[in-house]
């Protein structure tokens, strides 16, 4: 149960792109073809391992509908990572990405890691958005990109873990102020005694650490 770090995630994107299914696949390893509309926000959690460290992910799955937008906004500030999801079989969900991104950037802390996810990659025959377009959008806005399928579980694990890796690296670089829990990061009992965020602890301390691990 103990962990080195705890990261808070949010999942955002248009309604029906498969946000809840991604979460369910990640936390329960199952797919539910018929899923009710998410009302407000739902919570899920899982433990992962990065660099030999236990990391707890707490994930808030938000409602995509416009009516819940003001509620969703309340979650940006306290999250360390966000999965911005679109549906590769519906062009309009891709077109709305800019609005989502603006909203997220405006209300979140500047260090929040955003991962762009093109979901439903199993439905290649109905594809409306090319993989290259997703890649281009991600490059342009400085996001990490991945195509996933909540149905086949392809890349789902990777999407969540890669986001965590990115956050973890930022912590190692000292970008995040991990003592401020409002950033969506919490240090657990397991964390290394050296605080990477403290100035000067990076070089020598890090080397010693990597040596013994």
């Amino acid at each position: 149960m103990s962990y080195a770090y705890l990261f808070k995630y949010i999942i955002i994107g248009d309604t029906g792109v498969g946000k809840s299914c991604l979460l369910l696949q990640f936390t329960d390893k199952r797919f539910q073809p018929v899923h009710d509309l998410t009302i407000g926000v739902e919570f899920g959690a899982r433990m992962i391992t990065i660099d030999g460290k236990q990391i707890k992910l707490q994930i808030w799955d938000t409602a995509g509908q416009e009516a819940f937008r003001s509620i969703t906004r309340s979650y940006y500030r306290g999250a360390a990572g966000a999965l911005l999801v679109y549906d590769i079989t519906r062009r309009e969900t891709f077109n709305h990405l800019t609005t989502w991104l603006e909203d997220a950037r405006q209300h979140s802390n500047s260090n929040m890691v955003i991962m762009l996810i093109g979901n439903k990659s199993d439905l290649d025959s109905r594809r409306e958005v090319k993989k290259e377009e997703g890649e281009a959008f991600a490059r342009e806005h400085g996001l990490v990109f991945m195509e996933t399928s909540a149905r086949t579980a392809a890349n789902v694990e990777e999407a969540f873990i890669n986001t965590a890796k990115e956050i973890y690296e930022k912590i190692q670089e000292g970008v995040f102020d991990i003592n401020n829990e409002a950033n969506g990061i919490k240090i657990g009992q397991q964390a290394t005694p050296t605080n990477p965020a403290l100035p000067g602890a990076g070089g020598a301390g890090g080397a010693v650490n990597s040596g013994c691990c």
Partner: protein
Amino acid sequence: MEFLKSGIKTVLGSTEPGQQPSAAETVEKLVDRVYSSTLLEDRRDACRALKALSRKYRIEVGAQGMPPLVQVLQNDGQDAEIISYALDTLCNIVTSEEFDEEADNPAVSVNVGEQFTEMFIKNPEHVTLVMGYLDEYDFRVRRGAIQLITSLIANKTRELQELVLVSPMGVSKLMDLLTDSREVIRNDVLLLLIELTKGNSNIQKIVAFENAFDRLFDIVREEGCSDGGIVVEDCLILLLNLLKNNSSNQQFFKEGSYIQRLAPMFLLNSSNGSSDADESNWTPQKVSNFHCMLQVVRALVTPSNQQQVVSACQRVMQKSQLLQALCDILMSSGVPADILTETINTVAEVVRGDRENQDELSRVQAPSQPPRPAIVVLLMSMINEKQLLALRCAVLYCFECYLYRNSDGQRAVVQTLLPSSATDVSSLSTGQLLCTGLFSTDTLANWFAAVALMHTLVENVAQKEELLRVLLATPGGQRPITLLEQCTSLMQQERYRLQSKVGLLMLLSVWLAHCPGAVKALLETQGTMAYLTAQLCANEHDEREYLVQGMCAFLMGLCIQFNDNSLANQRREDISQLIIKRIGQETFCNKLSEVSRHEAYSRACKQAQIRAKGASELLLDYEYCKLYKGLEALIAKLVSGFDVDGIELTELTLSSEASALVAQYKGIIRGMDAQIQTLEQSSKQLEQQNAELKEQLSQEQTIRAQLTDQNTLLKAQLAAQPTAAAAATPTTTPTPIATATAEQQTTETANDEQLNAARYQANMYFAENIRLTKELETLRQQLAAEKQRADAAQESLLATQKDQDDLLELLADQEAKLARYESPTNEANDTNGR
């Protein structure tokens, strides 16, 4: 007061002596000043005066003062003092609290604050404006804004919640205030959040997301946990708001390992010496805090939550030793009764349906002499007349939860009643206690014991059968009677009061349901059916009597429904006839529905927990209601489905769902019938065919045998013919040899005798020769005949060959003719085609 008066004077200027201005006039002047004064000081003084007046003359200030005060909030943001006056004045106007100053003012109605709230929030920007002042660090401003918002939410919760949700980062901003280093601010925000989170799961989730659990646990710890003051209670109330009926937050709470932070708070530090005199430690505040802590635990595992969340939390509560801490509280002395009661209720829900937790509870030993299981000690207080009602209810609930989906636990209790179990007599067993309760003179003890016993049977047919074996010794030393007999006879006794009867009827109903053995045993008891019939025929006009009648009807119904017809004169039809002739079908169904019409029914259906304000409210149990709900319609249909002649109209006795099912099965059976018929037919046909084929086969076999016989015969004949021919030729050749030898012999013998002998011999040879020639002749003839026959055969062959040739010729001829005919036909066809 003097100061206030002089203050007003300085603001309004001195008035003419003897003419006191009315409150409304004063307020009007002040409002005018706030509006029109160019000097900040003047506006500030006017605001201060309005604030002073707002408590006594709330209506006047509220009616006129709102627009100027809002204007101040809009324009004078840079001056903390005037803002704080404006905020305080507004707060006084909208608060639902009644001030001492206005107590004698008849114009102030109860909901005046609510009306002013409505006026104020009509323009949503007003709320945003006030929310904006939360960012102001100045103590008076921030606190004023917090208090004003709190009052607004208290009056118009729904509307304010919506407004806060819509305002950008509204909830987050409020959460930030929890970290304010000034305790007063932090405590006021707690009160605000308590109001804000009431019944709004979206806000609850955002508050939780903003690390509320961490913050609250930190504050609780800083304030000394359960020993802390009212702030701890506020924190716990907020925690409770966040968790109640909010599965997302419950899951977050569990996943965030907050149960582990909750668990140590339940450890009573009895180590510090005087554990027995603990009672003084339980200050009223500590009791309140503890009560809230228990509520928080229950909010996570209450039966109405999602099953998945409940089980997950129950597991963690065991692992984090929270259950153990709760059990320790149960068994420690000096705990106030209401805390003890609530702890029992909490333990109940922590173990409900979770085998490991149930086992842990069963292993808890009370520190008594001799040590007894905690469950026994609890049951002792349940049947103890002197205990508090709430505590007794809690124990029953705990016992029920212990047995819920716990067949081993149910069996263990029933086992203690069976004669075979050789428990030592000195120790009290659960079964003994329940029987003591059942036969006690305390009506409530009867009821509690009956319901407790009932729960050992719920959904467990095996224990229903086992309990039938329980025998009770009779005081007169006569033959022992069964527990079931005892129950039925108790039920018929006049001194056994109504509440006790209700308990017994519930026990019997659950016992009989789905258990034909128990039905049989009940029908065999003396006078039970007569008693039930009499109850149903009685014409009492008491609401509680009605309930008993309904329950009796239900019991009778169960006797029909689960009757295996093994008793003559007590079969399904017989009981139905009894109902039809003595009670009447409609009356029966009417009485049956009395149960669900009784208020106790809807009360008991609501939750598994037993709640009663007074002892008389204890009537029906949750599990009994569940059983009743499931079977009522069935029994009503069953009874009204019998006609006067006792013929069961099966279609009617079933619920629509069941009859649909029956119809479905009937269809299936019909289809299968048809299938069977066609299959039978085809099998018959096949058998016939088989017989024919066998016959044919035997015929063929005989034919074949004949043919083989013929074949061998013909073969033999064919073999015989050439031998006959061969036999004919060699017989001809020896003749010349014989003649030659005869001539040789004549030349060799010269004398007569010799000649005579020779002649004689010659004659003999001659005769022999003649005979042989004759034979040769016949053989020649035979050969000729054979040759003739062969010739004839060849001739006939030739003839047939000739015939064939003729026929071929004819055929060729015919073909030629056909060809000849065809060509004109083709031509004709062609011409026709054209």
